[in-house]
């Protein structure tokens, strides 16, 4: 059983600032979904290799050749805030109180 506290913890790990109403709504739904997907545990799969990707391709390289790329103006055009030709973001390090 997934509790409301578990969901609140997952929301924090997922960087989702959910309201109390959202947590109340999502918690029982996620509990129902997780119980349903847990069916995979019935499958006898000992010794079966996992598949992460269906093509079987691995280590695909292309030649390391310089070529045109986005200009700084193009790269920054969608940015919420820009300063000195850089993405401007809120402070990342917070002093522990």
């Amino acid at each position, binding site marked *: 059983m997934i509790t409301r506290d578990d969901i609140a913890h997952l929301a924090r790990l997922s960087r*989702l600032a959910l309201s109390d109403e959202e947590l109340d709504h999502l918690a029982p739904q996620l509990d129902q979904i997780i119980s349903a997907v847990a069916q995979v545990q019935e499958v006898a799969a000992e010794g079966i290799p996992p598949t992460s990707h269906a*093509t079987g391709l691995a280590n695909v390289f292309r030649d390391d050749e310089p070529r045109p790329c986005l200009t700084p103006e193009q790269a920054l055009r969608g940015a919420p805030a820009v300063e000195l030709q850089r993405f401007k973001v809120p402070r990342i390090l917070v002093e522990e109180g």
Partner: protein
Amino acid sequence: MGRELTRKTATELAAAVTAGDVSAVEVAQAHLDQIAAVDDRVRAFLHVATGEALAQARAVDEKRARGESLGPLAGVPVAVKDLFATAGLPTTCGSKILSGWVPPYESTITARLRAADAVVLGKTNMDEFAMGSSTENSGYGPSHNPWDLDKVPGGSSGGSAAAVAAFEAPLSLGTDTGGSIRQPAAVCGIVGTKPTYGGSSRYGVVAFASSLDTPGPFGRNVRDTALLHQVMSGHDPMDATSINAPVPPVVEAAAHGDVSGMTIGVVSELAGDGYQSGVMSRFAEAVEVLQGLGAKVVEVSCPHFKYALPAYYLIAPSEVSSNLARFDGMRYGLRAGTGSAEEVMAATRAAGFGAEAKRRIMLGTYALSSGYYDAYYGKAQQVRTLIIRDFEAAFSQVDVLVSPATPTTAFDIGERADDPMAMYLADLCTIPSNLAGNAALSVPVGLAPENGLPVGLQVMAPPLADDRLYRVAAAVEAAFDSRRGHPLLDEAKGLGA
């Protein structure tokens, strides 16, 4: 003349523009007029690129006037799902978090369409980041099914399917991660294909679940769909998962719908409880038609298919939780809240994502967390191997597999909107091919007698045998069209007669 042009096939339009019987501008204008006439009811488009489409059409006409040869989609309008990056045109993925974002670069597939002289009409509505089966998870409201405006057009590529079914575009682009092309094609009565994984480039296609996402075509008939499939496909060095192999001969296969001597397997697991009676009766009729055309039909068991849905709902959300981490309000898109970067990220994501995106991000975070990884994500990856083995065993006996494309016809808008498990069942038949990476399509096989809504036949083929899909679909289409005497879409009355 406008209505006449919108009723033509893509193949006819390309030929007419190439011959100079009609201009690309006239073709584009006819479709823009149809959008203006019906899209307030269908709501297939999030953005109609009127100016750009007409400019592109003019460029095609000028190219012809200069005596240059035109590409295979000369002047053919195409509607593009709103998760293909289109330089200069908004790309929202149906999400408020990307409201107003204009990509600085172009996806490989839309670039190939433009190089083939197609005209991009605009961007179509979808479930947010392609997660859903109805377009109800769009941040911009649902699209409506042209057969019955109170029904969903399917999803996630529901806008692209509805646009083609409503004659707003002869062709459109979608993506299929768990059925997001085949399911909307089925419930809108059109053709839609999920190519072999790696057969169509993901470069510039906003990622949902990278190991499953497959761009593909929609059309009103098999031949048009094959034409778009051919143009959009092929190796792309910009996508490391792109297969370096020739495109299967899909156009040729679509022109020769001959199934005599083919062995066709009916998957016994894709039937039973939860399948609507009218879907099953149309499916059975399609199988009889194939038998009548000389195919040998056998029943095939794929015992692990019943675990495909739970495995998918572990694998896809796990990949989502990672892929959607980039939407954090730092470099593009919405930024909300105040305080530290972490607080701004959490506030931005809470404000920008809808309920289904949040559910799946948290589900994936759970499945990947330490202590649960082996029991959930790890086990799902093993089930994926077993499903691939089921397909391999089946394809050692048969050329293609068939099933209904969806368990039911189109459902009511609102009916499953807040019941995620009920919504997930819409992709019951389509998910196995995503997990295995093989090719599959849906082709219309008539209407369910109980409600007069379209039913799709799913055809599945081994990886890189996409041409077999078109051979079977062309045979089915020809048989049903000649029996009926007119194309199925002539019976769609959601927009009036």
